[in-house]
């Protein structure tokens, strides 16, 4: 099988992002990759908020916008099955950056609502779907599922048809 050819040139703006982040956090970052024009860093939990603030406040980077914050579940990764992925956008520099944080089962992450208030609902959804706790979140309650929903549906071990199931939903008792 032929090795994958990297045909996309790394844009100058992303080279600056890469250089500044490497310079500031250096060996503390767990890894980086450049794939199809997208730059990804893996960040340790301790530096998570520091990296976010650095990305937002440094004039060279100027990531003004939090595009999305979401979760992942890798049951095969025994040490750190959970993951939080953050997508940042710089409108002024026209760059995008992806940050990943790997978490152990039950490990919590500090909330990003202090950096970008728009992280509020994203974190609520991530908690609801994966059970990843966000320390300091102002309102960590269910967003999409019903209030009394049990379980974290996007985890790989959650049964697709749910824990209630059936054509007649007994969990609707008292609601309709």
């Amino acid at each position, binding site marked *: 099988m032929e090795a994958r050819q990297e045909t996309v040139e790394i844009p100058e703006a992303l080279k600056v992002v890469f250089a500044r982040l490497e310079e500031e956090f250096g060996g503390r970052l767990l890894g980086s990759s450049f794939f199809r024009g997208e730059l990804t860093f893996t960040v340790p939990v301790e530096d998570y908020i520091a990296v976010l603030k650095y990305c937002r406040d440094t004039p060279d980077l100027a990531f003004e916008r939090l595009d999305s914050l979401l979760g992942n579940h890798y049951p095969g990764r025994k040490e750190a099955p959970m993951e939080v992925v953050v997508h940042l956008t710089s409108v002024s520099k026209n760059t995008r950056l992806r940050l990943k944080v790997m978490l152990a089962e039950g490990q919590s992450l500090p909330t990003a609502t202090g950096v970008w208030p728009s992280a509020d609902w994203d974190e609520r959804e991530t908690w609801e779907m994966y059970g990843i706790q966000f320390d300091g979140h102002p309102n960590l309650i269910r967003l999409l*599922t019903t209030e009394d929903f049990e379980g974290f*549906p996007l985890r790989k071990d959650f*049964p697709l*048809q749910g824990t209630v199931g*059936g054509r007649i*939903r007994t969990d609707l008792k008292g609601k*309709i």
Partner: protein
Amino acid sequence: MGMTKPVGLGADTSGNAATGKLEISHATLASLKNASDAQVREALDEEHIPGVALPANLEKLLGFGRSFSWWPLLFGLACCAIEMMATAGPRYDLSRFGMEAMRASPRQADGMIVAGWCTTKMAPRVVRLYEQIPDPKWVVAMGSCAISGNIWNTYSVVQGIDALIPVDVYVPGCPPRPEALWEGLEMLRDKVKQSRHAYDGLRTIPARAAIGE
């Protein structure tokens, strides 16, 4: 057709019509209660009555009127709603059948088109909207998801809207083309004309009955 076409009173001079009085036996009236138009005409011929608007046909008259101004609830759950909008738009033009006035309030609607999948979180709202529609009301389940849940046999999707509320017409498709919805609405108009409903006399909500409330 919804009702018999009245014949001019002076046209037929035979039988009772000759006296100028419209008389019809109780037995005939009772037998005509659920009769088809052809049967009504036949019975009228037997009694030599040239044609009258019978009380038994009042419901048919109402149904005839309703079928030309069935106003659905402005209500879309998912992608099927886009096709519903296309049906209401100028190309397929539901206003030809008097259905273009989608009411934003259930209290002014004649029924609802459940367009798309219904989540368990939405289910109580769907039932509430259905109950707020005044009688008589008709429900169209539009699309595979509203009919059976389609591929979403999952934790959050209701497996068929008829588990929640009584459904009159099912329109399959994913999503159904506007022609399909139109066909379904034609079938619905037939039901409206005949004043036939999916709900029972007690207005039972299937979901509530099944849960046991």
